[in-house]
């Protein structure tokens, strides 16, 4: 599924966008970055999180993930957007909750990661 379609489904706002033609097939929803580092095994995965700070972007960078959906409508600072641009990350903001975003994307065909 492409970024535009994902964003439309969750009533999102695309803050930074790279690679609009890329297809995403999996997602991982989590606010614990160590769990992301432990369990995300697919760089084509979308990270869905309510954690809006440098650490969520750094975690994505380490895992080669290039798309983060920030849920619950938390304000995003200019610094975060600039860091996202610097590391070629697509950042989407939505007011929808983590549970609902996960449900909408699951229903639309995005699969969970197979862990361990």
């Amino acid at each position: 599924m492409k970024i535009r379609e994902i964003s439309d489904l969750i009533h999102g706002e695309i803050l930074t966008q790279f690679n609009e033609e890329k297809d995403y097939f999996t997602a991982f929803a989590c606010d614990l970055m160590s769990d992301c580092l432990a369990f995300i095994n697919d760089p084509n995965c979308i990270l869905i999180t309510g954690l809006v700070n440098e650490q969520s972007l750094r975690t994505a960078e380490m895992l080669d993930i290039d798309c983060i959906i920030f849920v619950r409508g938390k304000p995003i600072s200019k610094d975060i957007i600039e860091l996202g641009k610097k590391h070629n990350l697509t950042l989407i903001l939505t007011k929808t909750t983590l549970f609902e975003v996960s449900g909408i994307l699951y229903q639309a065909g995005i699969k969970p990661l197979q862990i361990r």
Partner: protein
Amino acid sequence: MTVTFEFNVYHEDYHNAGVASSEIKKYLTQIGLNPQLIRRIVICSYEAEMNVVIHSYGGKMVLSIDDNEIKLEVTDTGPGIPDIELAMQEGYSTAPLSARERGFGAGMGLPNMKKNADTFEIASSPQGTIVRLAWGIL
């Protein structure tokens, strides 16, 4: 020939936490290392960097690379880990709220490092902790 990089890491400097690991990743990508190996190295490096930021008075990370091996040595100046065996258990954490608010402190750091390094050594005293990690280059 061995190439060495050194990074200082400061207590509770969350704004810059991850910058050293980002630089490490950039360098390892430039030299054309296998992406899977880079991923394992930077997961360890980022966890180790966050541990220094969260739990220590400050420290440093030294990365050295030769033809056969990549080594990462992370040292800090205390206060040390009272029970390493307990700290190695998944889910055990002594992290403060400031770390948890930033998505860390879930007790996965040291187990993540052990899982992703070819060799993992840790020693600790009240004067400081030293973590030595190494990966073979195939």
